[in-house]
């Protein structure tokens, strides 16, 4: 089975609010010093899902990411977890917050990698959280898409996928090739074994530019984006606390009344 996992490097979602800064002009997040970027948590789970399939069946895992040269770190992380190969898609022209554009770049890279049975993505990125790239990519690759998977297994007809829904889960069967987005319910990602860490350190990571994956530059230009960021603000965090006086009984009535009035 050939599995391709799309991963993304993001600013650490655990950046303490006091250190989270943005630049409203350029509509960018200013990375705080001393807090290194990390692999998006959902993508790490997608990798975990891929590795579990590899543990069980014969599989080859290839990881791809779009980002700056620093993003090769997430490819190394993917390899240390169990991926066999990885590519960094790095080109100034790739810079975008648009899900369609991202999906397009990924689809071109996947085309270059060749035949695949399964593409895995995180359910959404841990930074912007749009949750669109997976489905759009599936569309572009013209394969069926299953979202929010928490368990994947191989059956005769293809894959059996357990997907999380708001009131429980569904089990679907899907033929291969297909694309599945993975939810955190998959479980904790593994800690890379020592052997894999060293392997990942030594492995060269090829960098692909737009021309390497036959991308029409014109399609990457600003006008082709489907999303536009109008503004970026850090929400104001406010909390107020009022202590309702009186005997417990009185206080309880008072609280109940206020809650009712809020409805």
């Amino acid at each position, binding site marked *: 089975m050939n599995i391709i996992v799309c991963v993304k490097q993001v600013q*650490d979602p*655990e*950046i*303490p609010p*006091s*250190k989270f800064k943005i630049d409203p002009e350029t509509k960018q997040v200013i990375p*705080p*010093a*001393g*807090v*290194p970027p*990390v*692999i998006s948590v959902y993508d790490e789970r997608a990798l975990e899902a891929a590795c579990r399939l590899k543990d069980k069946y014969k599989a080859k895992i290839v990881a791809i990411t779009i980002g700056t040269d620093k993003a090769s770190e997430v490819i190394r*992380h993917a390899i240390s977890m169990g991926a066999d190969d990885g590519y960094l898609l790095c080109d100034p022209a790739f810079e975008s917050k648009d899900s369609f554009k991202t999906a397009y770049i990924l689809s071109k890279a996947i085309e270059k990698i060749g035949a695949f049975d399964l593409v895995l993505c995180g359910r959404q990125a841990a930074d912007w959280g749009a949750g669109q790239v997976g489905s759009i990519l599936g569309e572009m690759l013209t394969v069926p898409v299953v979202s929010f998977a928490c368990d994947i297994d191989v059956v005769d007809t293809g894959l059996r996928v357990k997907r999380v829904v708001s009131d429980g889960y569904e089990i679907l069967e899907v033929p291969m090739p297909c694309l599945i987005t993975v939810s955190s319910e998959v479980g904790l990602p*593994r*800690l*890379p*074994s*020592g*052997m894999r*860490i*060293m*392997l990942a*350190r030594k492995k060269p990571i090829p960098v692909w530019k737009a021309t390497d994956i036959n991308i029409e530059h014109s399609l990457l230009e600003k006008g082709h984006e489907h999303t536009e960021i109008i503004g970026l603000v850090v929400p104001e965090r406010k909390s107020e606390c009022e202590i309702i006086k009186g005997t417990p009984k009185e206080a309880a009535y008072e609280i109940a009344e206020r809650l009712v009035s809020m409805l």
Partner: protein
Amino acid sequence: MSLLNISYLGISGYVIFWGMFVIALFLFSRRIYFLYKVIRLGKGEDRFDRIGERIKYTLSTMFSQRCTLKSIKKGDLAGIGHALLFWGFSCFFISYIILIGFAEGFGMQFLRGGTFERAVFTVLDIAGLFVIFCILWAAVRRYLIKPDRLEMSFEAGFIMSMVLSLMVLYYAIESCRFALMGESSRWPPISMAIATYLLEKNVGQATLWGVFVWSWWLHYIFILVFMVYIPYSKHLHILVSPFNLMFKPMDRKVLIEPVSSDMSEEEMVKGLGISGIQDLKWKDILDVFACAKCGRCHINCPAQLSGKILSPREFIKGIKEHTLEVAPLLLGQNGDKQKEERGKTFIDGKVKEEEIWACTTCGLCQEVCPVEIEHVRKLIGLRQNLVLEKNTMPEGIQNMLRNMQMRGNPWAGAQSLRLKGDWINEAGMEPLKEGDGISTLLWVGCTGSLIDRNVKATISLAELLKRAGIKFGVLGEGEPCCGDPARRAGYDFQFQILAEENREILRSYNIKEIITSCPHCYNTLKNEYPLYGLDLKIIHYTELLCDLVKRDKLSFSKTTGSLLTYHDPCYLSRYNGIYQEPRTVIGRIPDVRYKEMERSCKETFCCGGGGAHMWIEEKRGTTRINHLRIEEVTKTGANAVITSCPYCLQMLEEGIESKGLKGVLEAKELSEVLLAAMEKT
């Protein structure tokens, strides 16, 4: 009066004598050769450097019996017992060579008779008394008093009766001989006294002769049996321990073996860390043969004392048993492939996974071990195998390592990042910039910069250094983790990656000297980083303060009022010999009231936090190690326990809190106490 000139049933005494000797020697050598081959199964390691120094150390330790006289609890006289036995038996051993080997065996009769012989027998007479006394005493201890640290065993009983018989036979032989010669003199005192008594009682010549001959041969046979039995029994330590002393780690008590990162994939597949004897170094195998099962490690180990399943004595015993079991297979004396495969690992055979994680790497076992056995590096080697190869570890460790890998520090998530670097604003400092011209760095460590309680101590330390006029810089948010918890957890590659990255960071700032606040950082930077190309001057802040007070650059004017005691961090005192320095500084506080704990300095007792144990849940149903330590603190009656390690501080505080001692006892970092003892500037 040589017995070898006589024929026995037509066979010459010499033939019997040498015949028996050759058989015994054959059995002895065969075993020794086997053991040698087993030791050679271990991997290579150079322990032959500074050989002169090593030999000197071995001889002086052995003959002074310093090894057994140290580290014994008050009232435990076993050390003296062993020393007397050693000295006494050594005299006999020499006499066996001279008087039996040379004088009888080679017929060098000139060695006999005369003053020389008299002198020798006088010494033996007295030594014999000591030996008998010690054996009886040992028997009483072992079989009646039964101290915790000793196990009952058949072997011990057998050896003791053997030695006792040798002594009794010696007196029988010598007194009969003197009686037969009709000599009477005052020397040697005991044999002669018995001889005189026998003559007075008119014991017949034939009887004397009979007893003499039989005793002599029996004595000789016993010596040979003893010689052959030793290498087959636990008393192997008699032969092996001198070598173990000789090949001990020279400069540091505890060494950890790094996992080579230059391995090819095939080599890695063969195994990382230690899982079986094939992964041990030869010295590790020598270690297990040197163990005397004296149990000193067993009764001192914090894991054992707090009810965990680890006992360093049993751990060593387990490896020894496993080794002796599978070595013949590995040496190819038996082609059972299946067994051979199974023999390759002792994890979850003779050594349990739970044991491997129970060790705090405090090193007390190694400190008290009379024969310099190295437990810690074997335990860490096993962890390396579990973590790097098998990917199994306690959950806490997994989270810690994940954090370290993703966020560069062992403490979890947002909580810890919140404070990162912030302390320097509070301390009124700026992070170091390239070109600042400052070459001294205060290395704070993750705990000292991320955990609220420890951050307070860090700020005190920075203030103290400023007041002493030290010019130093800090890295603030840019300070990485030194990697200690990863290495102690066996995740050695992560440690190596960090060491290499940190080397580059420190070089880029042109740092020449580092003051560390955490003993764990101190130990890694000072002792473990040089292998990765960073060899800077590393000092712990207690060393620096000691130097400052001695040069009168730092002085204290206020007394503390409370009764103080100092808890030595293992990684500072035992690992690095720094225990006098903090005491010197504390001694400079005016009118200080100070009381030492029972276990202190090099033999300090672990707080429970070392060896990555800050991230391991202590097993339910067992005592917590920090609670044991707090009990020892309370015995001193102190109101404040001072320490100089962020882990110790946290563990002691937790202990005080859960034992309900808040308000009676407090835990303080040394820098906090000292700052309070200074006038405000």
